[in-house]
């Protein structure tokens, strides 16, 4: 029994390497309690999966958990915008323009230059940002994953070709090309803007996944799978992919934040989402037109900062939880 508790699960070896970790002792004492109770009940020790350990590590990351709660709240407000918002984002009231924030008439964030309620505008803006962020991250992850997996697994000329294309996209001045493409297509729905953004966002993940596949394809279990007659597809997606999920999830999370920032910048410059869809970037832009009315700039900006800050902290927590061997260097 004592031997059992003093020896950590071999899959959990890297536990002690996590920066800022309370140390292996605490982890083990927690485990000991579990073991005691199960042994007392006369049961076998239940093996915990990788994911269970990752979840434990994430929950212990206080900043990440706090951010998750704040972010859930903010996105919840965005999702239920039509229930929560006191006004429609388009309803205007020309008798009540550029009113400073007040609780009278629920104009908590004031009103804009044609008397629209700014609080409602911001809430609907959160919804748009959420849609863009998640959709871009999803598209970019799928595409980056496919490119990286194929390049890393097959190597040779395929790898060379795909990586040169990736380099090429990285050399393009991204913001300028985004503006050109947006000018070419005109302002569009949040979905179309997402597709355009995703076209630039897959490169980082493709490089990471390629690197992981390059090293993992030499592993014994891949050789074993080959010996068993598994096809390339099966090896790539059943055997190698599950071992690369940690970095992919971390990268996907951080991509949500970058996408929200980039969409806001495009909309701010007037090249992003069409005028009828509310967007936090456009709301900030309306602050530029009325520089003495501070609430127009401050509130939507603060919401963007809150969202991005929370996502970055969650990304940090996920990295510590899923990918403990990798030190975090923010780029």
């Amino acid at each position, binding site marked *: 029994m004592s031997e059992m508790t003093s020896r950590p699960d071999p899959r959990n070896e890297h536990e002690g390497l996590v920066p800022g970790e309370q140390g292996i002792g605490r982890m083990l004492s927690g485990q000991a309690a579990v073991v005691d109770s199960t042994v007392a009940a006369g049961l076998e020790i239940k093996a915990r999966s990788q994911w269970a350990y990752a979840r434990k590590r994430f929950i212990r990351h206080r900043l990440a958990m706090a951010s998750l709660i704040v972010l859930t709240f903010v996105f919840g407000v965005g999702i239920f915008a039509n229930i929560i918002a006191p006004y429609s984002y388009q309803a205007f009231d020309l008798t009540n323009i550029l009113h400073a924030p007040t609780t009278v008439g629920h104009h908590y964030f004031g009103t804009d230059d044609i008397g629209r309620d700014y609080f409602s505008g911001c809430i609907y803006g959160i919804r748009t940002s959420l849609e863009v962020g998640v959709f871009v991250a999803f598209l970019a992850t799928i595409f980056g994953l496919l490119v990286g997996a194929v390049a890393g697994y097959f190597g040779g000329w395929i790898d060379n070709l795909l990586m040169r294309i990736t380099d090429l996209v990285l*050399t*393009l001045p991204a*913001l300028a090309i985004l503006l050109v493409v947006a000018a070419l297509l005109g302002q569009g729905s949040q979905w179309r803007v997402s597709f355009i953004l995703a076209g630039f966002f897959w490169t980082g993940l493709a490089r990471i996944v390629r690197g992981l596949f390059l090293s993992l394809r030499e592993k014994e279990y891949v050789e074993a799978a080959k010996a068993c007659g598994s096809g390339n597809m099966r090896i790539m997606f059943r055997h190698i992919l599950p071992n690369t999920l940690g970095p992919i999830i971390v990268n996907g999370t951080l991509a949500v934040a970058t996408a929200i920032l980039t969409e806001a910048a495009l909309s701010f410059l007037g090249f992003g989402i069409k005028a009828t869809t509310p967007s936090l970037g456009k709301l900030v832009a309306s*602050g530029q037109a009325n*520089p003495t009315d501070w609430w127009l700039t401050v509130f939507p*900006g603060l919401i963007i900062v809150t969202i991005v800050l929370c996502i970055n902290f969650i990304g940090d927590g996920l990295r510590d939880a899923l990918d403990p061997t990798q*030190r975090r*260097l923010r780029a």
Partner: protein
Amino acid sequence: MLTYIIRRVLYSIPVLIVSSFLSFTFVSLAGNPLGQLRIVPNISQNTLNNLSHQYHLDKPIPIRYMYWVEDVFTHKLGNSLQTLQPIWPDITRTLGHTLQVVMTAEILALILGILVGIFSATRQYSFFDYFFTSFSFLGFAMPVFWVALLLQIAFTDIYLHWHVRIFYASGLNSVPGGSAWSIDRLQHIALPVLTLMIISFALYSRFMRASMLDVLNTDYVRTARAKGLPEWRVIMGHVFRNALIPIITVAALNIGAVFGGAIITETIFTLDGIGFYFVNRLGAGDVYAVMAYLVVTSVIIVLFNLIADILYGFLDPRIRYE
């Protein structure tokens, strides 16, 4: 080393060709240079066709690309098809302004970031460290345009309330054509510089801190301490110098990125830089001017990537190029 540099330079040529062709395709599809003329009532369809033919606009895009490349090399980026003026003087003028702003911001951010990084790492988990860690996380999360707008609003309001002119919120000089390093110019570029600086500073201080902590844990630092060197000599002689290597690379890459991202800052402060020029010309559908911007920016990004690679090998003798 020299062969490596030559190979890298040769390698960036096809990258630039392909990327400029891609850009050219997008830009040509996005804007019709004769679009503005079409609105003028007394221009006949015949004249338009002739103009089209004269500027090869009736040809397919690959052919037009070849004509454009010829123009780039023989006529210094060619003439604008809208104003019919040469593009080169505009580019050099605006590029000069952008370089002044970007380089000032980056040098200041680098100096401050390195200093703060050193102190944060040597006093890890102190109040100072926590303060600047929070600041840099905030710096990563703040949209550039928001920072710029807040600064602009703050200094506009200061002027409106107290009639004190600390910094100007737009433009380059009070009188057009003023000197590039006068007090007046510095008052004008201070806010754009501050905007770019805040964002870059967050990155550099964070990287420097992480890099210092990495080196502090190495064996040779322990050796230096064990042989009785004073702490400041350990930090400055052994840790600082080695911790600089990754920062220099990050800075070189970041300057290229900031240069491209300066579009937003310049637009907000209506600063006569190359990014603002680009946004204006893009709005007007001026294909060649937009292309000129894209080419210049691509070259600068490729150049800084190259500098990053070369510096990395130069500063760290452990890196070998085959």
